């Protein structure tokens, strides 16, 4: 348990980076760039977050809404410490559990048991602390003997089951959830929803990225509406969600509802 109160504090956070349309930069690009002709694969400046300021205290549940590309997932990754802010301050006090990008980071040649260990170690567990959790994770995943098999033989649904079971076994102080979690078949989805509800109750602070505007008032104490990398509005659910809905209705093209 942390000595200081659990909190997230973002002060005028900017995130700027450069990407190229082609991931690889050719030798020709290096040699002739700026000499004879303009680059065919020039870097594009992306200003993903623009002056985001947020303060979330212990006990609060913050929902983040906004269109695709508004910067919601990027904001979550800044809070998780994966992306360093280019400017501004990001202060996090508390042990973070991230439930996003569940499907990435598996070792496909290794067995389910091995992957449970790798993922748990990445979440900061030790052989001693995971000893009591491994069986619980295996049981929750319902994968049985398939845990002895390399992951390359798993179906997509089995992978999701395993990924969710490992990620949700953590004991978080700060819980970050990207709602794009589609956990397996119908029966497992119900179980996953139940587990998420337990996690939300157990976590002392939660930030949830979601498109489910109907569910947010039950889950969150406040909502931040992101647009083009900025927090457009921040406040209670009953104030922000209607404003966002009417903005979406205005933005919808004529006949879109048909």
């Amino acid at each position, binding site marked *: 348990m942390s000595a200081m109160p659990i909190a997230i504090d973002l002060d005028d956070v900017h995130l700027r*980076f*450069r*990407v190229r349309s082609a991931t*690889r*930069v050719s*030798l020709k690009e*290096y040699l002739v760039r700026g000499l004879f002709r303009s680059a065919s694969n020039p870097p594009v400046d992306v200003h993903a977050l623009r002056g985001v300021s947020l303060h979330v205290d212990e006990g609060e549940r913050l929902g983040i809404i906004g269109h695709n590309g508004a910067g919601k997932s990027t904001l979550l*990754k800044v809070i*998780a*410490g*994966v*992306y*360093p802010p280019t400017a501004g301050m990001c202060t996090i006090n508390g042990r973070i559990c*991230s439930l996003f*990008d569940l499907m*990435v*980071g*598996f*070792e496909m*040649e*290794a067995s389910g048991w*091995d992957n449970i*260990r*790798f993922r748990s*170690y*990445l*979440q*900061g*567990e*030790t*052989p001693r602390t995971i000893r009591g959790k491994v069986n619980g994770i295996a049981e929750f995943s319902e994968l049985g003997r398939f845990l002895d098999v390399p992951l390359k033989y798993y179906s997509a649904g089995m992978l999701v089951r395993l990924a969710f079971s490992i990620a949700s076994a953590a004991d978080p102080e700060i819980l970050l959830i990207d709602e794009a979690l589609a956990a397996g078949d119908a029966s497992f989805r119900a179980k996953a929803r139940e587990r998420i509800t337990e996690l939300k109750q157990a976590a002392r602070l939660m930030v949830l990225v979601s498109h489910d505007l109907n569910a947010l008032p039950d889950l969150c104490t406040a909502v931040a509406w992101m647009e083009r990398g900025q927090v457009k509005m921040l406040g209670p659910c009953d104030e922000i969600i209607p404003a966002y809905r009417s903005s979406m209705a205005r933005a919808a093209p004529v006949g879109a509802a048909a």
Partner: protein
Amino acid sequence: MPGRIATVWRFRHFWLSLAGMDLRVRYRRSVLGIGWSLLNPIVMTVVFCVGFSTWTGNGDWRTAASFYLTGLAVWDFIKHSAVQGSLTFPRNEPYIRQSPIPLAVYTLRTSLGTAVHFGIALVVAVVAIGVLHPTDHFTSLYALWAVVPAACLLLLFCWAVSTLCAVANVYFHDTQHLAEVGLNIGFFLTPIIYAKERLVERGLGFVADVNPVVAFLDIIRDPLLTGAPSTTAAFVQAAGLTFVAVVAAVAVLARFERRLVFHL
């Protein structure tokens, strides 16, 4: 800095288990398994003995075989650290995008894998020297104590090389290919299959003087072949090179670590 080292240590179970898995996966479906790591230096040594021992002036094939085995062990360690090190960050990209742990964790994963193969090659060399020199089975064992610090220096040097190549490859994607080509040329410019004196005789002594690999060849090869530790000067040179390489690797990580995720 001490904080980063503490974090790397805290996640030791993560990189140790991944390095262990890399080794298991590498040989899972092969008939010989890890035997390939034993066989590889032996086969190369046989080829060099048959094809080059007279030409390179190494004389007796038994002496030449011991010479080749020790040289190949050191060279392969450095070569694989550079080539496999270049691929470290693309290979671990999913983890890097999920968790903000120090990037040194991933270069340690690569270095440990290559270090295990170096250890195997070294054991093959020690056993071979014992078998090939029936009058003095234990020559290499007399000064084995001197090989331990030498191998530790080499391990640190290779981790630094691996880290530098890994960062370079993120910004310049041809690093791996350049390293492969450069090291293939370097193999013939380094006294691995011929004695350092051959270069001096041909007026190319400076090639050995500027080649950082030579210091590591000396401090590992000398005790195994002669039963006496290498010169203090060779140790000082190897320690100096290791220090410079490690400082460069730490500085490069400190400079690029936080922004590297955007270039993957």
